[in-house]
C-alpha cells in the first residue's frame, strides 16, 4: 500500500479511537462534584490554548508574532464591541490578508 493510503488508514483508526475512548470508558457515570468542576474548566483551558497556539506558532514550532496576531486582535476588538462571530472572523481574515499584502 502506498504511503499516503497508509497515512489515511492510520489517521482514521487513531482519530476514531481517541474520540471514542472517553465516552466508551466513562460514559453515563456520575462523577464526583470536584471532577465535574475540573471538567467545566476544560473548555476555557483548551480554547485559550488553541487561540495562542494557532496565533503565535511559527512553521518550525517557534513563537512568532506575525500578521495573524493583528487579525486575531481585530477579531477581539469586534467581539469586545459585541459584534457577531462571523464579523469577527471576517475582520481577522481581512486584516491578516491586508497586512500580508502590504508587508509583502
Amino acid at each position, binding site marked *: 500500500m502506498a504511503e*499516503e*493510503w*497508509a*497515512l*489515511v488508514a*492510520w*489517521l*482514521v483508526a487513531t*482519530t476514531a479511537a*481517541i*474520540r*471514542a*475512548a*472517553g*465516552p*466508551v*470508558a*466513562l*460514559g*453515563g457515570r456520575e462523577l*464526583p*462534584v*470536584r471532577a*465535574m*468542576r*475540573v*471538567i*467545566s*474548566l*476544560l*473548555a*476555557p*483551558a*483548551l*480554547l*485559550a*490554548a*488553541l*487561540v*495562542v*497556539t*494557532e*496565533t503565535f506558532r511559527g512553521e518550525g*514550532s*517557534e*513563537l512568532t508574532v506575525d500578521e*495573524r496576531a493583528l*487579525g*486575531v486582535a481585530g*477579531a477581539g476588538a469586534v467581539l*469586545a464591541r459585541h459584534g457577531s*462571530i*462571523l464579523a*469577527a472572523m471576517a475582520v*481577522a*481574515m481581512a486584516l491578516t*490578508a*491586508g497586512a*500580508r*499584502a502590504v508587508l509583502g
Partner: protein
Amino acid sequence: MRRDSLRAGIRAGIPFAVAAGALAISFGVLAEPVIGAEATLAMSALVFAGSAQFGSVAVLGAGGGLAAAVTAAVLLNARYLPMGIALAPSLRGRWPRRAAYGEAMIDASWAMASRGGGRFDPDFLVGATLPSYPAWFGGTVIGVLAGDLVGDPADLGLDALFPAFFLALLLGGELSSGRTAALVAALAAAVALVLTPLTPAGVPVVAASAAALLGLQRGAAGSERAERHPEIEGDPVG
C-alpha cells in the same frame, strides 16, 4: 435524540462551518501535491480532524516519514481524550451509542455544547458538528480542484480564522462563567505559549488543559454558572 437541541446546535454550528470550509480549501490546496487528490479527499471524508490532517501531511511533505506523520496526528488529536472524558458523564445508553457521540466531537461543537457545571448537551453537540462536515469535505474538493487558482492560502488570511473563532467562543461563553474560568484560561494560554517552542505540535494544548485542575481547589468557583442555574447541576451531592 432531542430535536430542539439538535436544531439549535445546527444553527449555532453554521459560523464555524464557514470557517471550516475556508480552512478546508487551504487543506486541499496544501495536501494535494503531497498525498494526491484521492487520499486528500478520503482523509477529509473519513478523518474529519483539521489540525491532525494539516499536521500529518506537513510532516510527510517535509520528508518526515509515515511513523512521524502518524505520531504528529495522534499528538494533535490527543486533546480529544480530555474532551471525551468531559463529555462522558452527560452521555447515556450503551457503548456504541456513546462512541458515536464521541465521534461527533469537534473543538467548536464540544465547546458550544458545554452547559456549565461540567454538563454537556450531546444532541446540541451533534447538531453543531453537522454543518461543518459538508463544509469540510466540500472545501477540500474546491482546494484540490482549484489549487492553482487559489494560490497561497496564507495570502487570503485563512489561517487567522480558527484562532478568531476560538477567541469568540472563549470571550462569548466560557469566560462569562466566572473568575476561575478566566484564571484557568490565562494559565492555559501561558502554559501553551511556553511549551510551543519546546514540544511537538499538539502537546502544548493537551498540557494546557491541566490548568483546569485549578477547579480542585477548595472554594474554586468552577461551577458558578451552575450555581446561578441550579437546574443544570444534576448532582447536588457535596
